């Protein structure tokens, strides 16, 4: 390839940068400096980052360059910069989860994801903004102010991982890490025109991922291209004995799948319950066009029904708050993080109470209360118990559908990015954003959001969701890369090239 110009470095994919580094055309330090300069230039407007660790990033980059120069065997992502969602612990680096209650907390240990990123030589630029403890679909619930969508700074970048998706769309980093409990990787990917993958539950270790809802949380890759997501997926996935729910099985070959991009003969199911009414006209239009492309590429497209999906949102908002209310109990001001109201007279209960009152935002408090209520004696069976049954029914719907088809598809979100503040006072409207993404978390299988164009009425990105069975992550990449290749062919570039200048 031709030498890459400095000014273009930040727009390149990780795969391109990797090839250029291996060819000696560019160094990791140059790429890292370019990203840091871009952050410097645009993050005042975007606010994707909560913390940037310039020195460590450059030191890591220099180390990779030295090793490469010495002829060391390096993985494909060695020297590539990455933006890390602020929900992963990283030794000595602030980890706030977007909450004031963890304002000054620096963990004494690395999460498994960070350990694997370090081992792969990935350059971690810093920590990205998020809805507090990953509760939200807009990053407006961050304790440190919202992140702005680079497509339109008045709009939300999605959530909870809006910082990671915005960092990609603003060309602050070629790669980012997210976590997905009900759509927190896929929905931000959809509204920023980027790629996001929620791997199979247990596919990526949760050790060091600050828990929202343990049975739903899953870490996954975010990128501007399907291949980049696959390269990152390969680095972070795999069994971890420190996470009991981690799957002890080989990781599907997602990189090969992303390179193949062949859907000929694949059976693709349209989920009847995810589409139609309640979905924005432009979203439906771009979705339908994408499905037509898949048909043209040789896939066999049929409609399937998943009748229990309509109960998913209700079940999710019983299970998630229940687990969250317990997971967030530890933030009590006794051992780390914020301590409020310790005036020498207050009892331990009072200090705990004042700390939680001062440290948690409204959405976190709302969900803790919901969860505490649904687990209460006398209500458990009616709420938490019933929700678990719905979960089983949804898993059965998926199992039945995957008898007929290889993957399922739907729009990732019902609408394009809404305006900041638009749904802040209407939690229910906010929750409806995740209506198409939640079933996958409840069933524990995997899904991807891939950009399929701009909605004609507002010029904002639309995402298509691909869903596959547990451990069928490679299928996501086959379909995603096929679609991406066809669309890039049509557009002449990846969708993010159309992000307006900041």
């Amino acid at each position: 390839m031709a030498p890459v110009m400095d000014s273009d470095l930040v727009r390149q994919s990780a795969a391109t940068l990797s090839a250029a580094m291996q060819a000696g055309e560019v160094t990791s330090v140059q790429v890292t400096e370019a990203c840091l300069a871009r952050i410097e230039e645009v993050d005042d407007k975007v606010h994707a980052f909560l913390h940037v660790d310039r020195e460590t990033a450059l030191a890591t980059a220099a180390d990779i360059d030295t090793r490469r120069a010495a002829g060391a065997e390096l993985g494909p992502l060695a020297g590539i910069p990455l933006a890390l969602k602020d929900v992963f612990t990283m030794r000595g680096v602030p980890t706030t989860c977007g909450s004031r209650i963890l304002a000054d907390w620096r963990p004494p240990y690395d999460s498994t994801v960070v350990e694997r990123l370090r081992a792969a030589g990935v350059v971690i630029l810093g920590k990205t903004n998020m809805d507090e403890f990953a509760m939200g679909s807009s990053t407006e619930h961050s304790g440190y102010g919202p992140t702005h969508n680079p497509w339109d700074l008045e709009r939300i970048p999605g959530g909870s991982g809006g910082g990671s998706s915005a960092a990609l769309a603003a060309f602050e980093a070629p790669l980012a890490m997210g976590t997905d409990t009900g759509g927190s990787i896929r929905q931000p990917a959809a509204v920023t025109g980027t790629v996001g993958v929620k791997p199979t539950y247990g596919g990526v270790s949760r050790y060091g991922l600050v828990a929202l809802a343990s049975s739903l949380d899953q870490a996954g890759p975010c990128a501007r291209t399907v291949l980049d997501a696959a390269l990152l997926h390969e680095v972070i996935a795999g069994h971890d004995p420190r996470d009991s729910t981690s799957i002890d099985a080989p990781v599907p070959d997602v990189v090969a799948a992303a390179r193949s991009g062949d859907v000929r003969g694949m059976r693709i199911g349209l989920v009847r319950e995810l589409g139609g009414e309640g979905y924005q006209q432009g979203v439906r239009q771009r979705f339908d066009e994408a499905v037509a492309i898949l048909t043209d590429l040789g896939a066999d497209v049929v409609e399937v029904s998943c009748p229990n999906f309509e109960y998913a949102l209700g079940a999710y908002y019983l299970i998630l708050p229940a687990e969250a209310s317990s997971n967030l109990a530890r933030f009590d001001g006794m051992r780390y993080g914020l301590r409020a109201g310790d005036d020498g007279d207050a009892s331990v209960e009072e200090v705990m109470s004042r700390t939680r009152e001062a440290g948690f935002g409204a959405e976190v408090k709302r969900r803790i209360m919901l969860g505490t209520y649904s687990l209460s004696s006398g209500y458990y069976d009616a709420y938490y118990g019933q929700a678990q049954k719905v979960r089983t029914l949804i898993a059965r719907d998926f199992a039945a559908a995957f008898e007929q088809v290889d993957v399922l598809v739907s729009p990732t979100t019902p609408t394009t990015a809404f305006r900041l503040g638009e749904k802040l006072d209407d939690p229910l409207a906010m929750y409806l954003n995740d209506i198409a993404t939640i079933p996958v978390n409840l069933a524990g299988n995997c899904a991807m959001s891939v950009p399929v164009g701009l909605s004609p009425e507002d010029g904002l990105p639309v995402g298509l969701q691909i869903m596959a069975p547990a451990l069928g992550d490679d299928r996501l990449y086959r379909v995603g890369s096929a679609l991406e290749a066809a669309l890039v062919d049509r557009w002449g570039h990846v969708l993010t090239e159309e992000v307006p200048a900041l």
Partner: protein
Amino acid sequence: MSGSTAITRMPFDQALQSFEPVLGLETHVELGTASKMFCGCATEFGGAPNTQVCPTCLGLPGSLPVVNAVAVESTIRMGLALHCDIASWCRFARKNYFYPDMPKDYQISQYDEPLCFDGYLDVVVATDDGPREFRVEIERVHMEEDTGKLTHAGGDTGRIHGADYSLVDYNRAGIPLIEIVTKPIVGAGSLAPLVARAYVTELRDLMRALGVSDVRMDQGSLRCDVNVSLAPAGEPWGTRSETKNVNSLRSVERAVRFEIERQAAVLTDGERVVQETRHFHEDTGETTPGRSKEHAEDYRYFPEPDLVPVAPSEDWIEQLRSTLPEVPSARRARLRDEWGISDLEMQTLVNAEALELVEATIAAGVDQGAARKWWTGEFTRVANEQGVALEDLRVTPAHIARVEALITDGSLTDKLARSVFEGVLAGEGDVDQVIAERGLVVVGDDSTLMSAIEQALADQPDVAEKIRGGKVQAAGAIVGAVMKATKGQADAAKVRTLLLAHLGVEE
């Protein structure tokens, strides 16, 4: 908040005339695994505070638990020894409540899916009519993690309220606990306190025999919650009290007795027993009210989503069953027969906590009679005086074996042997060191004794004459003088024999 209070009690015998006690015992024991329940931290007792901790047992954000397989195995073995059914599939549960000794503000425990359930343990109590056996039914055996340890400084209550500050040591947080819960124990009547004690004793011995815990009660590794309620004869059970953290065998017995006496007085006065947790005070033997359960805590149990279910295979369970060691009751019966002692004599050894020590002493080559005599006599007395466990005395089975050998070869007398042990117990060294230091060797060579005898006869010619004249009973005066001259280090019987032979007098 101890000290004598104005709690009204009804004399025990009188209480039993009107009421039938119902007991329930919940026993928590720290398992003797090398690492904690859900992380790799060491479990060793006595480390400097907060040195045996990691992100997981500190409950740091992002940390996750991983089940200790040895703890599961120990629990299953304990369940099998208690004749329990073993669950083929069960889950951990979170017990949610806020307290600073709990790093996560929830405890990982088991709730409605215990690993072991429906078993029993037979215990024996001594009565005036001889030993009597009781079957204590077991409701469940489950696993959980221990909390940290709080120390409250300042204030005068020793509790968190009123303290100036509190220190917390998380070394204990995450230590594996096994909880054994009985079904209600009814029909013990006046033997209820003894049954409670015998049950906990048997449980402890069983765990030691299985090697799942060394059960150091002085280190708080066994804690018992004692539930007591009273039922007027023929009527339904009354409201129960729950006395928390009773941590010695004697205290279990006393707590049951006290609660029977207290509740009988309450009910006889026409009052009602309050459902509450109570604290037992070692110094007074009384219980005082703690938290009232009228506004009971709602623990919001739900299955622990960070852990996968425990699903022991049938093969594994059978393998563990086939390798269970001899249980304490069977062992006692075997030793009783081997040693040829009575049930009562065996019970005496058990009550004195001397069975293991006696067995080890016999194994060291000592005659069973002598072994039992030393441990249940002299050493039990000393242990009681010092208020320590028999096994914590400085004397060992090897010491006894050495002393007995010296007695047999005539180097020590019983009296000197006592002096040797006095030295050993005082920390003066082992048997031979004490003998050397104290100069405790029997004056045994005939020429030394003979010169002392001749000297005594010369000093008391009138006595010598009497003996020669056939008054053998007068020999005592000469023997006494010889013993005095040898500072008691001669064998009196031997002196007497030598004396009579010297004088040519027949016994």
